[in-house]
Structures are given as structure tokens and as C-alpha cells.
């Protein structure tokens, strides 16, 4: 999760989530960053509306899932 926390830290700080920025943070945290994971994270987050997704986490989701019993 280190990589994700680093990304959210950047997001919360209003900075862009780039490979360099992630790397800098991870190094400051004493983690030797794995290029592939960094790249993968940046790629995966493309198109994700982080604010919205975080908000969802804070909201009780109660929509009924229709299930065959």
C-alpha cells in the first residue's frame, strides 16, 4: 500500500501523481521504489477520479444488490 499512500499524499497536497513525484516520496520514506509498481500505479490511476472514489469510501453504500436466493 506504500505506493497508494504516496499517490494519495500527492493528491491531497494538490500535486500531480507522476513517477518522479512518487519516487521522491517513497525514497524519503526509506523505501527503494520499484519502477514497475510505480509505473503500474500511475497507469492504473489514469482516468480514476480520486476525489470521487475517496468520497465513496466515506459514504455508506446501501444500494441493494439483487441476488438470487
Amino acid at each position, binding site marked *: 500500500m506504500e505506493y497508494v499512500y504516496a499517490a*494519495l499524499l500527492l493528491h491531497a497536497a494538490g500535486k500531480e501523481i507522476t513517477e518522479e513525484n512518487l519516487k521522491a516520496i517513497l525514497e524519503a520514506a526509506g523505501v527503494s521504489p520499484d519502477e514497475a509498481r510505480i509505473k503500474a500505479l500511475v497507469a492504473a490511476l489514469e482516468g480514476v477520479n480520486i476525489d470521487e472514489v475517496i468520497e*465513496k469510501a466515506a459514504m455508506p453504500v446501501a444500494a441493494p444488490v439483487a441476488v438470487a436466493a
Partner: protein
Amino acid sequence: MAHVAEWKKKEVEELANIIKSYPVIALVDVANVPAYPLSKMREKLRGKALLRVSRNTLIELAIKRAAQELNNPDLEKLIDHIQGGAGILATEMNPFKLYKLLEESKTPAPAKPGAVVPRDVVIPAGPTSISPGPLVGEMQTLGIPARIEKGKVSIQKDYTVLKAGEVITDQLARILNALGIEPLEVGLNLLAAYEDGIVYTPEVLAIDESEYINLLQQAYMHAFNLSVNTAYPTGQTIEAIIQKAFLGAKNVAVEAGYVTPETVEDIFGRALRAVLLIAQELPEELLD
């Protein structure tokens, strides 16, 4: 006061002295309180408030005198609230607490014809110990859903026979007494209370505790939300703050399909659920 009897003069002086020496003076109506409950009431008030029952005219004189001697015209406003068989309660208790204490000290009392009920009177559903007899017919004419079951009168469902403020009739008094329902209450009715220049009436003093509990909960939620949403940690909120950060991070990772030990289950779960939900839509022969 030349024409007034000596004992009255003394009584007024005594009452005035009491009024002068307590910060809170309340008027109560003791007219309908029988001797026994009244003495119980005095016991309950002991150490908290001094109860003096007197004639309304003497109380009025005493209040006037105390107001004059204290040079406090506001106190005289209490006089407007004297009614029934008045008594004075002198106390150091805050008037709201005093009111609460008096209300809590009231005891239920059996129905009396002609009396006004303080709140709705409900005959509860269920069996009673009443044997079949003319009372059943009377109940039915009043609309009370009474029936005979297993040799006893049974009430089919909750039925409100009186609304607050309505008068008990002869017939209803008999029915309520037979059912053992005590719709009246006995106790000191507070008429008004004076403290610090303000006369408080019962309408003001009757506070809704549940309303305050709601406010407390609201205020707490405000503090909780403020602390968590701004990530200002306190002993009570640090856990929630961590959880919020974690869940936020996890949700983002799951949404992004970024697999980590913490997210693998959720991500696979989503994929799997999608597959299973789709499988439900498919004809059986497609499933193995």
C-alpha cells in the same frame, strides 16, 4: 394592616422573610393534593426546598412586602400567578431542575369523575381480570373494543378513550377504575417560579430532555466530523482518521485495479462478482 389579625401579620412576616432569603421562589398549587401525598412530597423536598402552604391573600401580601423590602419590583410579578390553593416553595435549585423534580415526584392516581386528564388515556390491548357483565356493554357503547375471551373481558387493540385536557365522565371513571388504569396524577403543580428578575412559567420550564440529547449527539457528531474531515487528530478520533485514510487509499487502489495484498481480495471479488452476476443472466446450458 391595622385591621388584620395578629397571626396573619406574623404569617406574612414569616413568609416574606423566607421569600427574601432564597434566590428561587416558586408558587405551587396544592389544592388537589391530599394530606398523605403532600407529606410524602415534603419528605422528598427536604434539604432541597422549603414548602409553605398558606392562604392566597397572605402569600400575596408577603410577596409584596418582600418585593418592597428588597426593592425588587420584578418579584411582584409572581402575584399574577397565584391560583388554586397556593403554597410557596423556596429553594436554591435552578427553576428548571425544581420543575423537573416536581414533575418526577408526581404519582398516578385513580380516575375521578369531573377531573381533567393531564395526558392521553389509552386502554391497552390484552386480557383483563374483569368478568363478563354490564360493564362490557358500557365499554362497547364508548367504542372500546372489548370482547369476552376465556371467560374474561379482553381488549382487542389499544384504544384512546380520552385526550389530554378532557374531562373524565362518571361512566368512564368506573370503567378505568375497573381496569386499574390511573389516568390522573397527584403532586405539586408549579404555577410559576421567580429567579433573578425573571418569572418562569411552566411552559418555559417544561424542557424536552430528548431534544437536548439529540443536540448533544448532534454536537458530538459535529466535533467528530470536523476532526476526522480535517484530519485533526484527537484521542477519540485518531482511529477513525486512520481508517478513513486507509479506506480511501484502498478504495482508490481497488477502483484502479491496482493489486496489493490489501486490495487483492476486493479486486478479485469485484471481478468474480461480475462474473457470477453475469452468469445469472445466462442460460443454464452455458454454465458448467
